[in-house]
């Protein structure tokens, strides 16, 4: 702790900050542009000028840039000194000289940092009579709108895009006052994190293109704290709704999970909520969607009760993309012995192994924040950028972390971005990336190796052997592999916080076991080792922790006649298992009830379809990859017959005469039963934060205090205003009435503070700049492994499939845009997704790049264009995972190439 004096008053602050951080952390309003808590200081914009005095007798002082001046013990500054105030007003007037008269038509208006800072400095009249400089814009793809006229040259965009996110195609171009932030040519931005430019840019140069198509100002959006559903990391989001339509997703700060950033899949994948493929009414179907009949809710429940009449013959299939509560309700409806986790075979095995490892310990699951702080990381078999994008972004921060640890030798403070990065150029982070095909993280890694999954397993065990041959003898690997294993082992041993990353991406549980072995060994050696498990979907871990049988046993139960009715919750089985097996089951089952929000190949074959709510219309809990239970709240009330999945199941139970469900009128009743039944979920019971302030009805408003159109938005239907819909499940109301002060950390529906309309107002919500939210970060970890010395290492498995002649081992290639089911309903995401292809290394290619090949994969013949992918391991072939047009790969599998193909007429 050091003492600084602001306006003559003493304040105690943490050591090692700069003056701007210190002032903002203490709650002072000091304007700034180029500084960002995640990006550090460069002193480019000259906006945060304050006056510094030598000692208490100094009355003249000197103007310094707060962001570039360390807050040393005894520093005396004045923010309100007239000269400093005048200086800041002049700076903003210069910055505004070329700023266009655009605010009414600018998407940033109302949440614009430049607007806020202009008002804060008091500049309100343009003195310059000279013409304004103009720029031509570029088309930056489906996610980002470019309006270069508005730029104030703070350089935050390129610092984020290039230095922080590792992108290369956005740059500062041209010279002097012509400087231009864009691409060399028009074209979609290549980085998976480009959407963050919307929040990084302090003005309206980069704005959200998907929001532009249904533009709404920040104050008009009905918002609630939510959790992203597009991968397993559980990033915190703030979705915004207007006129019953989801309009955008914004980041919600969580110190230990996503920090300030989101990936583009999370930010732009929301449009499935508004999709025309939504199921909005109960449907009775006999074979095809064309013959579907709309039903009333009561009719649907009567029909369902008849279908569920024989409870011994009903099985349930849960879903990794449904809330924990919905899965629990299904498990209660059908009984634990007839509940099947709707996971693919390989996911079921991998997640089972992962859960087991996390629960057994002694090494804890890494938080995303912990990933960035690692000083050595070994990624084993996971294409992190595509399956867990924010983890890749955090792995990229290892370089920065490494240089931060040595900057004191160079007399450079930690927050000095340019200095730290200059030193970082000399440092390569100890990041080892072992994957089955070239990935986007390779440019950041110290060593990269591409090998088939079973060879990666062997590498994992070779590293364990190199760590300590007494734990595991060196497996049979070639010299190069052994040398690499030694190098990785040395780096991991040297590290204080080594990190092991593995996941379900290859569908091989042995990879997860190999990574756990290393983490356990290192943890036992005394280092703060962590294990990061990448899981495919938003509730994969929660579903797997719930137990349940695998999907094949569901197929068997129907096939053998032990069951004739199947209830499928928010799941498209054709994405989980071989189409033939699913077809067989759906044909044989007498009654199929599907509860889902999207029309899928599975819902098409159902006899009764019930419309489920999406994450935006229901409140529930999701368990992320580190076992953190996080609650997402409904942003808008469900329309018409749409209900939360668990609510449908509760109604089905009631209709079918189950006793237990009658008390489940609110989410909290169901949660209470859930934790009673399964103690592993105990922390879920206390997830709803209690508002500190007594509010009318005990609830916080979802609408801002400036929400507009309350008496006109429904007036075209009825001039009498409807009563706001009640929400029994959340401590939030669909209303603008109630306490609008600082909410508890888990209930932050929007970041706003007086004078701070942009998301930069976040500093008013944090306990320290860049630190946890006031009152502690939301969410609770379910699994904190016991510290035990009893480690039973996994043994290396016997290797299974080896491809025969003309055969190639199948490797799923993941794509951030395309491999995930729900986000593909967003037109922008679909545009960025690749077309189906078969990837081979050039040496193995029977035909040229882009030519059609005919192939045989798990008994199906396909014709796909060939993509040459230099670096693919020998005798492996890659198919894009989850992409429409590519059948579900049941791993492990082989591909047989039949020769040159042509598209069948």
């Amino acid at each position, binding site marked *: 702790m050091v003492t600084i004096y602001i306006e003559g008053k003493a304040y105690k602050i943490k050591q090692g900050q700069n003056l701007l951080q210190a002032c903002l952390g203490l709650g002072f309003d000091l304007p700034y542009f180029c500084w960002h808590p995640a990006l550090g200081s460069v002193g480019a914009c000259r906006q945060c000028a304050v006056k510094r005095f030598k000692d208490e007798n100094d009355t003249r002082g000197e103007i310094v840039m707060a962001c570039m001046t360390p807050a040393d013990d005894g520093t005396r500054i004045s923010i309100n000194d007239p000269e400093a105030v005048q200086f800041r007003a002049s700076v903003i007037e210069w910055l505004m000289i070329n700023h*266009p008269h655009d605010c009414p038509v600018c998407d940033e208006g109302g949440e614009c940092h430049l607007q806020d800072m202009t008002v804060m400095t008091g500049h309100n009249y343009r003195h310059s009579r000279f013409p304004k400089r103009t720029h*031509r814009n570029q088309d930056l793809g489906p996610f980002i709108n470019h309006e270069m*006229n508005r730029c104030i040259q703070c350089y935050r965009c390129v610092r984020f895009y290039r230095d922080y996110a590792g992108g290369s195609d956005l740059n500062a171009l041209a010279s002097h006052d012509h400087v*231009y932030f864009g691409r060399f040519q028009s074209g979609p931005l290549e980085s998976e994190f480009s959407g963050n430019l919307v929040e990084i840019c302090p003005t309206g140069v980069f704005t959200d293109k998907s929001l532009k198509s249904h533009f*709404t100002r920040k104050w008009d959006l009905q918002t609630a704290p939510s959790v992203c559903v597009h991968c397993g990391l559980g990033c915190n989001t703030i979705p915004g709704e207007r006129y019953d339509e989801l309009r955008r997703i914004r980041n919600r700060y969580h110190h230990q999970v996503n920090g300030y950033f989101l990936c583009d899949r999370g930010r732009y994948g929301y449009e499935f909520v508004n999709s025309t493929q939504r199921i909005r009414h109960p449907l009775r179907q006999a074979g095809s969607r064309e013959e579907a009949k709309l039903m009333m809710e009561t009719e649907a429940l009567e029909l369902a009760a008849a279908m569920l009449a024989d409870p011994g013959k009903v099985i349930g299939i849960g879903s990794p993309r449904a809330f924990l509560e919905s899965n629990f309700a299904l498990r209660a409806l059908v009984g634990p012995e007839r509940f099947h986790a709707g996971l693919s075979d390989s996911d079921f095995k991998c997640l089972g192994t992962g859960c087991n490892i996390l629960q057994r310990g002694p090494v804890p699951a890494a938080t995303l924040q912990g990933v960035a702080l690692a000083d050595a990381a070994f990624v084993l078999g996971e294409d992190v950028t595509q399956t867990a994008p924010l983890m890749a972004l955090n792995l990229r921060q290892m370089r920065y972390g490494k240089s931060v640890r040595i900057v004191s030798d160079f007399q450079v403070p930690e927050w000095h971005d340019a200095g730290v990065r200059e030193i970082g150029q000399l440092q390569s982070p100890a990041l080892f990336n072992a994957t089955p095909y070239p990935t986007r993280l390779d440019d950041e890694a110290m060593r990269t190796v591409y090998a088939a999954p079973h060879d990666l397993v062997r590498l994992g065990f070779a590293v364990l052997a190199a760590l300590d041959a007494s734990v595991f003898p060196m497996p049979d690997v070639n010299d190069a592999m052994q040398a690499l294993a030694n190098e990785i082992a040395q780096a991991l041993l040297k590290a204080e916080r080594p990190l092991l990353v593995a996941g379900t991406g290859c569908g091989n549980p042995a990879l997860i076991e190999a990574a756990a072995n290393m983490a356990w060994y290192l943890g036992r050696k005394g280092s703060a080792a962590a294990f990061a498990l990448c899981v495919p979907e938003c509730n994969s871990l929660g579903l797997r922790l719930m137990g349940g049988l695998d999907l094949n046993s569901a197929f068997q139960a129907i096939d053998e006649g032990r069951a004739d009715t199947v209830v499928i919750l928010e799941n498209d089985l054709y994405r989980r298992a071989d189409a033939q097996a699913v077809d067989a089951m759906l044909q044989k089952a007498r009654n199929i009830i599907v509860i889902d929000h999207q029309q899928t190949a599975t819902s098409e074959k159902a006899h009764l379809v019930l419309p489920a709510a999406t994450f935006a219309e229901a409140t529930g809990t999701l368990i992320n990859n580190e076992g953190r239970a996080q609650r997402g709240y409904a942003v808008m009330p469900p329309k018409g017959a749409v209900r939360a999945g668990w609510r449908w199941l509760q109604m089905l139970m009631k209709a079918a005469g189950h006793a237990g469900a009658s008390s489940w009128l609110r989410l909290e009743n169901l949660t209470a039963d859930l934790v009673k039944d399964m103690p592993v979920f105990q922390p879920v019971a206390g997830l709803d934060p209690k508002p500190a302030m007594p509010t009318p009805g005990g609830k916080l408003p979802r609408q801002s205090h400036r929400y507009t*159109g309350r008496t*006109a938005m429904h007036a075209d239907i009825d001039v009498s205003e409807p009563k706001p819909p009640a929400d029994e499940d959340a401590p939030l109301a669909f209303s603008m009435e109630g306490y609008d002060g600082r909410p508890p950390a888990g209930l932050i529906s929007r970041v706003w503070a007086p004078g701070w309309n942009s998301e930069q107002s976040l500093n008013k919500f944090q306990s320290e700049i860049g630190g946890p939210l006031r009152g502690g970060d939301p969410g609770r970890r379910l699994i904190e492994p016991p510290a035990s010395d009893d480690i039973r290492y996994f043994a290396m498995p016997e290797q299974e499939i080896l491809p025969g002649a003309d055969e190639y081992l199948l490797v799923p290639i993941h794509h951030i845009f395309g491999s995930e089911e729900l986000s593909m309903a967003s037109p922008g995401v679909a545009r960025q997704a690749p077309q189906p292809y078969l990837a081979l290394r050039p040496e193995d290619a029977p035909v040229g790049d882009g030519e059609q090949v005919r192939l045989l994969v798990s008994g199906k013949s396909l014709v796909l264009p060939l993509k040459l992918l230099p670096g693919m391991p020998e005798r492996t072939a890659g198919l894009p995972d989850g992409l429409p047009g590519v059948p579900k790969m049941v791993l492990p599998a082989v591909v047989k190439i039949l020769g040159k193909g042509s598209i069948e007429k």
Partner: protein
Amino acid sequence: MLSNIRTIWEILRHSFRRPETIQYPEQKPYLAPRFRGRIILSRDPDGEERCVACYLCAAACPVDCIALQATEDGYGRRYPAFFRINFSRCILCGFCEEACPTLAIQLTPDYEMCEYDRQNLVYEKEDLLISGPGKYPDYNFYRVAGLAIAGKDKGEAENESEPVDTHTLLP
């Protein structure tokens, strides 16, 4: 006593004054152009909609009786897809007119808006939009804004230079 007599005297005196009352609706009073009556949406001098759907009128409205939705034409010009004022809620305070950055929304000296059915007081854009510029004949927001629209490219607005050629290094 004196007060009572004075009151009677005043009443008597007023009996010979000219009446202030006029015979409405046969006779109509003079209303100044800045009278705050029925709200309209005006057009710019080129005959295009002035409203750019910035939502500021809705934000300024103390009774929240304005609802709209922004949309764009193919060239980037923004306009309201719908614009609704619920006059049964409107208090004719004129805040919307003050907030309007494009002088689109204006209050007029018309107050004759009685209806038997409240529902008929809900005005949509078709009911609000007039064919002229209203009180401000000259102003055209897009002539001063930096946004390019059909017929006005970058650098063609008032007081703007030609777009920068980023490929030159010359000063």
